[in-house]
C-alpha cells in the first residue's frame, strides 16, 4: 500500500511522509471551502424576506450533539495511541466508538433538519434555509465520509492490512476527523451561538423558547 515512487529509500526532504503532508495541504484547502460557505451564511444574516430564521436554532440540542462530536475526537486520539502501542483490541474498540459517535452526530443533524422542515424551513424557503442547510449539509457530508473511512480502516484491520507498522493510515484519518470537528466548533460558535443570541430583536431570555420550538427544553 505504501506508494513508493521508485525511490529506493523512503526519505523525504522534510522528513514528513508524503501522505501526511497531503492531508495537511488538503485541510488547508478545506479551510477555504468552509470559509466560503460560512462567509456566505454570515453575509446573508438577517436579510430574509419571509420564513423562519435563526430563532429556530436550538442551542440545548446542538450543545449535546457538539459534545458527542467532541468526545469522538477524544476517542480518535485514544484509537491512534492504541495502534501505535500495538494494542489492536483497544484500537478497534475506540475506532468503533469514533464512528458510532459520528453517526450519533449525523442522527442529531437529521433530526434537526426534519424538525426544521416541519417548522417550514427547507433549502428553498429563504436565504437562511439555503445557506444554513447547505453549509451544515456539507459539514455532515464530511462527517459521513469520515465515518465510512473509519469503518473501512476497522474492516481492513481485521484483514491484517492495518497494523502497528502502518498506523500512519490511522493518524491521517485522525487528522481529517479532528479537522471536521474543529470546523463544527466554528460553526457552533459563529452560526449557532451568535446566530441564536444575536438574532434581531431577541433577548437572552428568549432562548429557552427556541428550544421549545423544536420540542426540548
Amino acid at each position, binding site marked *: *500500500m*505504501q*506508494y*513508493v*515512487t*521508485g*525511490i*529506493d529509500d523512503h526519505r*523525504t*526532504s*522534510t522528513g*514528513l511522509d*508524503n501522505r501526511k*503532508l*497531503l492531508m495537511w*495541504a*488538503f485541510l*488547508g*484547502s*478545506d479551510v*477555504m*471551502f468552509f*470559509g*466560503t*460557505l460560512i462567509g*456566505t451564511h454570515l*453575509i*446573508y444574516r438577517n*436579510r*430574509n*424576506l419571509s420564513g423562519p430564521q435563526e430563532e429556530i436554532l436550538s442551542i440545548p440540542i446542538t450543545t449535546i450533539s457538539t459534545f458527542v462530536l467532541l468526545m469522538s475526537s477524544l476517542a480518535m486520539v485514544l484509537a491512534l495511541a492504541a495502534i501505535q502501542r500495538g494494542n489492536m483490541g483497544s484500537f478497534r474498540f475506540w475506532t468503533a466508538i469514533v464512528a458510532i459517535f459520528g453517526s450519533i452526530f449525523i442522527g442529531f443533524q437529521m433530526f434537526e433538519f426534519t424538525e426544521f422542515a416541519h417548522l417550514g424551513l427547507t*433549502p*428553498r*424557503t*429563504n*436565504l437562511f*434555509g*439555503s*445557506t444554513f442547510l*447547505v453549509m451544515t449539509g456539507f459539514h455532515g457530508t464530511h462527517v459521513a465520509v469520515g465515518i465510512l473511512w473509519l469503518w*473501512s480502516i476497522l474492516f481492513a484491520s481485521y484483514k491484517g*492490512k492495518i497494523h502497528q*507498522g*502502518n498506523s500512519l493510515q490511522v493518524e491521517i484519518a485522525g487528522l481529517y476527523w479532528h479537522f471536521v470537528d474543529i470546523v463544527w466548533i466554528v460553526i457552533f460558535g459563529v452560526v449557532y451561538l451568535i446566530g441564536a443570541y444575536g438574532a434581531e430583536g431577541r433577548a437572552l431570555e428568549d432562548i429557552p423558547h427556541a428550544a421549545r420550538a423544536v420540542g426540548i427544553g
Partner: protein
Amino acid sequence: MAANIGILRRPVSTEGVWGWITTVDHKRIGILYGVSAFIFFLIGGIEALLMRVQLAQPDGTFVEAGTFNALFTMHGTTMVFMVVMPAGAAFFNFLVPLMIGARDVAFPRLNALSYWLFIFGAILMNFSFFKAAFPDVGWFGYAPLTTSEYTLSSSTDYWVLGLQIMGIGTTAAGFNFVITILNMRAPGMTLMRMPLFPWMTLIVSFLIIFAFPPLTIALTLLLFDRFFGTNFFDTAGAGADPLLWQHLFWIFGHPEVYILILPAMGIVSDILPTFSRKPLFGYTTVVFAGAVIAFLGFGVWAHHMFTTGLGAWATAAFAGATMAIGVPTGVKIFNWLATLWGGSIQFKTPLLFALGFISMFMLGGLSGVMHAAVPVDTQQQDTYFIVAHFHYVLFGGSIFGITAGIYYWFPKMTGRMLSERIGKVHFWVMFIGFNMTFMPMHILGVLGMPRRVYTYSVDQNWAGLNLFVSIGAFIIALSILLLIINIVRSARKGEAAGMNPWAASTLEWAIPSPPPHYNFAVIPTVRSQHPLWDEEANAVEPPPLPAHGEPHMPDPSYWPIVIALGITMVAGGLLIWQANTWLGLLVIAVFGFVGIRGIYGWVFEPVAEESAERVHAHH
C-alpha cells in the same frame, strides 16, 4: 493480492494506447496535457477568428448575436481553463521532477486522475454543443443572470458541471505539486537552490489549492439554485445579494490570473540565464517577488468590481492593493533586464520569445496599473481597452512565455531540435500579428467600443481599426501554422539534441533526451544553484546504472481513469435527471458506485502487480 482487486489486475504493459490510458509516468502525463492544451488552443483560436470575421466590418452578418455570445464565452473559458492552465500543467509535469532531481511526482496516480478529470470536464462542457448549444454566459458566468430564471438553456448546466470537474482535477494537481516540491527534492536541493520554474510551480500550486475552493463553492451554489431551487442568487424572490457571485468568482478569479502568468515567469526566469550565460540576477528577490505577488493576489479581487458601487473605502483599499501588486512585478522585470545586462547574449528562438514575453507583458502590466486608478477604470470598464489589457498579459505574457518554454524544452522532451530558422520566422510573425491584433484595441476602447458586442454600425467610425485587428488575428493564426510545421519537420528530420544542447545549468539537462522512464539512474546530490555550470563532471554524461539494474517504478493503473469516469458521469446523470428523473438517478447510482469502487480499488492496489510480496516485505 491481485485477487483482492477483483476484475482489474494492475496493468504492467506501457505499450500502445492502453499504455497511455493507464500511464502514471509524469513525463507521459505532461505530454498528454501538452497535446490536449494545443488541440484546445486551436479550437479556442478558431472561435476567436470567427469573432474577428464577424467584427471585420460594420453591420457584419457572418454570425448571429446569440452565436457571438457563445463564441466569446467558449473562447474565454477554453483559453483560460483548457489551454493556458493545462499548458502550465504540461510543463509542471514534465519538468518539475526532472528539475528537482526526483523520479516522479509524489502521487503518480493522483497525477493521472488530475489529467483525466481535466480532459473529461473539458469534453463534457464542449459536449453541450451537441445537446443544447455552446454555453453563452461569459467565462465569468455572472449570477443572477445565470440562474434558471434568466438562463433556461441547459448549456449553462454543462458549463457549471464541466468547470467543476476540471476544477477538482486542477486542485488535485495543486496538492500533488505542493507535496512533490516540498518533499521530493534530491539531496542537497534546498528550496533556495531550486531553479525558478519549480519555485513558481510551488507558488502556483499554493494559489490553486487556496483559490479553487471559492470557485467550487460558487459553482455548487449556482448548481443548487438551478437544480434544486435554493435561493443563493435569487435577488428578486428571496432578497439575495446581486454581488455575491461576483465576490466569490473574483476571489478565485484574481489569483487565477497569477495561476496563468507565474508559470510563464518561471519559464522565462530559467531561459534568460541560459542564453545570457550568467546566473539570474537577484535570484532571491525574484523568488520572493513571486511569493509576494501570490499573497497580494488574494487581496485585489474587487478591482474587477469597481463600477458596482462598493463604496469609497472599499474601492480605495482595493485600488491601493492593486497598485502595490505592480511593485513585485516590476522587481521581476528589472531582475530579468539585469540578467541580460553584460551577458554573452545568444539570440536563440527561446530567448526571442522570452524577450517578447518581457516587453509585451510589461505593456499589459502598465495598462493594468492604469486600471488600479478607479476613475480611469470606471471609464474603461467593459470597453475594448480591457480586452487589449488582458490579452497583453495572457497572450503577450502567458502564451509568449509558454512558447519560449516549448522551444527551450522541446529537445529535452523529444530528443530532437526544432528549426531555429522557422522558429525565428515564427517569432516575428507572431510578434507582429499579436501587436496588430491587440494594440489597436486600446484605441478602440478609448473610442468607446464596448466588449462583447456582436456588431457596430458604420457611423461609429470603428470600422478601419477593426479590419486591421482582424487581419492581425489571421497573422497570429499563420504563426501558429509555422509552429506546427516546425514540430512536424522536427519529428521527421530534426537534428539530435543530445543531453544539453543549450549548455544550461539545471538538472534536467544532466540526463539523456528524452529522459528514461526512471529519469535519474542515480539520484544526484546537489551542491549549488547551477549544478551543471559549477560541476563540470555532471555536465558530460549521466552516471551509469547501479549494479542492481534499473530503478523500480510504479506500474500503470486503471483506477485514475475509472474514478474520473465515475465523477464525470455522475455529473452527466445530473444533466439527464433534468429531462428524465429516473434515468438520471440510475446513471448517478451506477457511476457513483463505479467511482467509489474505483477509490477502494485504488487504495488496495499494490505498487506493482508482480511484486506484491516484495512490497509487503518492506513493512
